[in-house]
Every structure is written in C-alpha cells, then in structure tokens.
C-alpha cells in the first residue's frame, strides 16, 4: 500500500501522466458507447414503446394526443381474431415445412462434403451458400416464374419426368397450379426457404464437423463400422451442440418469415390467405388498417410464442448438449 503511494508520487509530477491514466480508464467505455447509444435509441426504446403501445388504441395519423389506454383489449382482440390464428397456423406450417427439410438435407450434405470430398469442398460449399447471399426479393421473383402454372419451368420439368419410363409414375401427369391452389402455396413458399437456407446450415454443420476428432472415425473404421454407422454413432451425437445453435436460428428466423411469402404469394397472403404469415399480418394491421396498438400487441404475442418454442428447444437439445460436452 505504502509502496504504491511512493510509486505514484513521481508520476503525478509528469504532466501527461494523469491524462494517460484517465484515458486508459475511460477509453473502453468510450469505445463501446456507440453501440449502446444506438441500441438505447433504436433497440431498447422501441421495445419499451411497443409494450406501452400494445396497451393503447392509436391511429398514428391522428397524432400522439389521440392515444387511448385500453388495457389488454388489443391482446384479447388479437386472440379472438380468426385471421390472427390463421396467420399463426400458416406461420407454423410453413416454418415446419421449411425448417425440418433444411436440417435433414444439410446434415448429411455437410457430412458427405466433410468425409469424402475434400477436393471439391470449397466449391461445393460456395455453390450451396450462393442462395443465402442473394436478395430474397430477386430470388422470389425468379421462383414466381418458375412456379407459373401453364408455362413455368418446374411444371415443364415435371411433365418431362413423367414421360420417362419406370420412374415416370412418381411425377404428376397434370400440371400443378403451385400458386393458385390452396394445397400447394405453403409447400411452394417453404421450398424457396429451404433452397435459400440449406447452404447456410451446411456451413454451420461443417464448422461443427471440423471440431470432431478424426481419430474417432479411424477407430470406428478399424472396428468395422460402416460409414452409416459412423454417421449415426459418432457424427450425430457430437454434432448436437451445433444442431442446437442451427435449430435455434431456424426457429427464430422461420417464425418471422415475411419476404418470401410476401413476394411469392403477394401481399394479400395468396389464395385463401394460406401464405399470410403473422409478421405479414402485423405489417398489414399497421400499414393498411393503421392500428398501431393492435399491431404492437400482435408482435408481443409472436414474441411470447418464439420465446416458448425457444425454451422447449432448449429443453430438448440444450440438455443433451451438456451431456454431449462431458
């Protein structure tokens, strides 16, 4: 203690020293402050404001004075609105139809790239990643023409496949009205989402695979395990931590789908509203019905749903993640 005092005495005499100490102590706070200032204004405040808003009836065009406290009415209004429930159902179905295939395709794909194809690894990963970096709007526009009923490339291809002997029976004889038939709109939207995110997941899973010790595979091969057995008993269990991350990201992203259904099925939500997702409905409520309070309440309901599903996912994958790490 005394020594420190003695040491600090001469530094006090040097003119620049105090400034040096001062800036060393406060520099980190100054360096991180831009993010926190931005977050306070554009992140935290909007969330608090949106919570406040969800308890009020408000048409933004009428000015702040017209805000009226209505308690939980916006929430009960949403929960008794059949269209809101339909939008949730649509979101859930599209999220499942696009979420499950994404991972079912990406995991074996990443495994195949990692195990046997080191030479084409870079090229393959880049190709599969390509849709992820491309504008959803651009891609969705292309898919609208590809899905087109009478003249779309997809239907032409399917018809052509139908005429091949032996496997032809697997493909439809009639042209499918992808965007004009209730039953096919959701799978059509989901397939675009799958197409877009498989590469992203492949990259995630490749990073997970690289972390698995190669000796394990060698030992298993010596014991006579087939590639499939190695995949099942080594790769899948050890991939769990990264699966948890990837599935969490898919869950959060898929429950907030907006652009793909908006462009492919149109802002009306497509035939019979089957592609109207909750975020689309929220945007409509705010933008066209100018009901800011109702839209804010809707976003909180969606937030709760995302939170609950994330927790469940945490229970299912998060726990085994711990045991996997041990």
């Amino acid at each position: 203690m005394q020594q420190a005092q003695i040491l600090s005495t001469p530094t006090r005499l040097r003119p620049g020293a105090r400034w040096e100490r001062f800036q060393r102590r406060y520099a980190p706070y100054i360096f991180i402050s831009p993010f926190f200032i931005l977050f306070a204004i554009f992140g935290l405040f909007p969330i608090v404001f949106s919570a406040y808003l969800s308890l009020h009836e408000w048409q933004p065009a009428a000015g702040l004075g017209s805000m009226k406290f209505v308690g939980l009415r916006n929430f009960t209004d949403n929960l008794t609105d059949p269209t809101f429930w339909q939008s949730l159902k649509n979101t859930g179905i599209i999220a499942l139809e696009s979420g499950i295939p994404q991972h079912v395709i990406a995991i074996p794909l990443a495994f195949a790239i990692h195990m046997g194809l080191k030479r084409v690894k870079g090229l393959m990963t880049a190709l599969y990643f390509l849709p992820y970096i491309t504008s959803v709007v651009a891609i969705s526009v292309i898919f609208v023409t590809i899905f087109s009923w009478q003249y779309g490339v997809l239907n032409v291809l399917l018809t052509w496949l139908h005429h091949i002997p032996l496997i032809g029976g697997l493909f439809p004889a009639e042209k499918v009205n992808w965007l004009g038939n209730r039953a096919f709109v959701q799978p059509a939207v989901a397939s675009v989402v799958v197409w877009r995110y498989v590469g992203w997941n492949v990259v995630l899973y490749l990073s997970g695979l690289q972390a698995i010790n190669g000796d394990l595979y060698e030992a298993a091969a010596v014991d006579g395990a087939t590639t499939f057995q190695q995949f099942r008993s080594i790769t899948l269990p050890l991939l769990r931590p990264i699966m948890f991350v990837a599935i969490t990201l898919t869950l959060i992203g898929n429950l907030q789908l907006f652009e793909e259904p908006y462009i492919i099925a149109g802002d009306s939500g497509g035939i019979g509203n089957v592609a109207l997702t909750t975020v689309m409905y929220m945007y409509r409520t705010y933008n066209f019905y100018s009901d800011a309070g109702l839209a804010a309440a809707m976003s909180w309901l969606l937030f709760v749903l995302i939170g609950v599903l994330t927790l469940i996912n945490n229970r299912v994958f998060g726990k085994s993640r711990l045991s996997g790490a041990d």
Partner: protein
Amino acid sequence: MSRAAALLLLGLGALITVLPFYFMFVFATHSRAEIFNLPPPTWFGDNSAANYTNLLGKVPFWRNLWNSLYLAGLSTMTTLFFCSLAGYAFAMYNFKYREALFGIVLATLLIPSALNIVPFALIMQAFGWIDQPRALWVPGMASAFGIFLMRQYIGSAIPKELVEAARIDGTSEFGIYRRIIVPLCGPALATLGLITFINSWNNFLGPLIIFRSVETFTAPLALRSIQGLVNTDWGALMFGVALTVVPLLVVFAFASRQLIEGLTSGALKG
C-alpha cells in the same frame, strides 16, 4: 461406390441450387411473351436491350441501385469502425462491468426483429426520417454480431503484449487501435464487411417501411414495385433482378472462401 453416390447427390443438389440463377440470366434476355411460352426458354435470347429500356421506363433503376450502394456502403464503413472499436475494448481491456456489458450485447442478438417493426416505423415518422436514407444507416452503424465477431478475432489473434508495448512507448489508446489493431484485423474486417454489405444490399422490410417515393427506393424495392403492377413486364423485371444480383455474385466469386471461413470460425469459437 458410396463415394460416387455421394458425389452424384452433391452434384444434383448443386444443380438445383444453381439452376434458378441460370434461369434468372436467361429470362433477363427474353421478352415477357417468350418467358411465358411453351416450352420456356432454356437459352439466352436477344431481347436484353428492350428489357433494359423498359426497365428504365418504369423506375429510375440506376438511381435505385445507387441508393442501395449508398446505404450498404455507409452502413458497412460505420459498422466496421464502431464494431472493431468495441471489439477491441471488450478483448483488450479489463474494466468494470465488462462481462455484464458484453452479456447485454449478446442478449440483443436474441430479440426478434418483428418486435421492432411498428415502433421503428413510428419513431422514424416522429423524427421526420421517412424517405430519408439515414433512417436505415444510422441505426445500422453498429451491430451486436459485429462486436461479437471482432472481439473473438482480436482476442485470439492479437497478443496483449503488443498492446502493452505500444502503451509503454506512449501511444494513446485510440492510437493503439488505429496503428495496431486495425492493421492486424484484416480477415475479420473483411468477413464482417461482406456480411454487413450483403445484408444491407438485400434488406427489404426496412426500406419498405421507410421509403415512399420511387426516387428513394432501393433496388429490391424498385423490383417489387414493378412486380406489383397489373401487367408485369417480366422481361424488364428479370433484367432488373440480374442487375441487382450481379454485383453480389461478383463479390462472392472473389470472397466466398474468406466469407465462409470467417463465418465458420466465428461460429466455432463462440
């Protein structure tokens, strides 16, 4: 045998992935009538010039592309600066509440963006920033993901002794950032820059809320406005789509390795 099967499946998957891009470029060279012909065109046509003229007749597309570039460029530069600065602070200093503050940064990643849509629109309305590009680039000046990425990189790639040595030599704290951290952060800055640029270039919902007049539209918004017309000129639209996507494809062709490696190592070290 199984290797050949794997290669075949991978190749087929890659084909499905790339085919829509191929049709995008093929359709960009055909008229609307040709695109919706039976069978659809599978090779390039000769209608590009007309598509280009029609596109410019509908929207000021070069202006829209410039708007996208302006927004993406500004967000990228500011994000690189502020995120590397914050990443440096989190990686190289011991300060009070460091862990808690970094925890807050990470927690913000989990907030669903849907929660923000309505208040974001209202705040921008209140600021009078509707139809102003700053409504998008100012909030986009720093990102939690960027801080996370930069901290991981700086913490693992730059030795603390280097910073200490510079400090003893009398370099100021910001001087250390500028003369030591930034020059050594090349790979991480490149990855973060690419991600930020791509995300901004492809952003749709933000511009949809902010921009009202076609002069301020970004490229994706302009494309959407053409598609919304009753009699969509699909040839012109496809030409616009191709013009929007080509810069990204070029950048990606040069930087895909860097981008993917940066992303995977960032995910791994988390």
